[in-house]
């Protein structure tokens, strides 16, 4: 891991297109601003990992189970769109 020390209003550049700026340091919290192109997602790490795990679990269900799902109806009967 590369370790750098920054003060408020200093920045870090990652690759050619990602800039992370320390906006404010207050107590034990650091406020960061991130500039990145649309092709790069930026998320808090713990939520990103949770979401990646959920996506992997949901990906490519077996076709048989999809057929069973289609028989599931929302509460109240006919689905509303």
């Amino acid at each position, binding site marked *: 891991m590369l370790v750098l020390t920054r003060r408020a209003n200093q920045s870090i550049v990652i690759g050619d297109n990602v800039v992370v700026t320390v906006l404010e340091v207050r107590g034990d919290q650091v406020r960061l601003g991130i500039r990145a192109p649309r092709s790069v997602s930026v998320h808090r790490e713990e939520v990103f990992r*949770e979401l990646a795990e959920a996506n992997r679990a949901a990906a490519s269900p077996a076709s048989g189970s999809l057929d069973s799902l289609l028989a599931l109806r929302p509460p109240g009967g006919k689905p509303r769109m």
Partner: protein
Amino acid sequence: MTVEPEPGMPELVFDAGLPGFGDAHRFALVRVGGDDSPFSVLRSLEDEGLEFVVVPPAVFFPDYEPEIADDVAESLGLHSADDALLLVIVTLADPIAASTANLLGPVVVNRHTRSAAQVILDPGRYQTRQPLVSR
């Protein structure tokens, strides 16, 4: 080998892919189960076999009204709520009635441009595995 969408089937573009699938950008949205079914499949056009079952959240979660952050709305070119189509990814379970929807990470689509992203909301408020139906 790539999968091409059928003519007329909307293609969605996820500039940043999806968490866990960062290289998957182009998807076809395919209705499944006939006219009566609220479900669709988000089918990768680049990675054969990769697909997700999705459903508009209002069908099973009528009170679900997530706030989309300004920076997300801006990057998707959304000017109003009407520009957006909301979908949630379903994780199928066994038994099928235990299937869940990911309310923490809804998919937001710009209806006009087909630009899409999976947004991450507040984990204190939403879950990745919210049961579709209560027992």
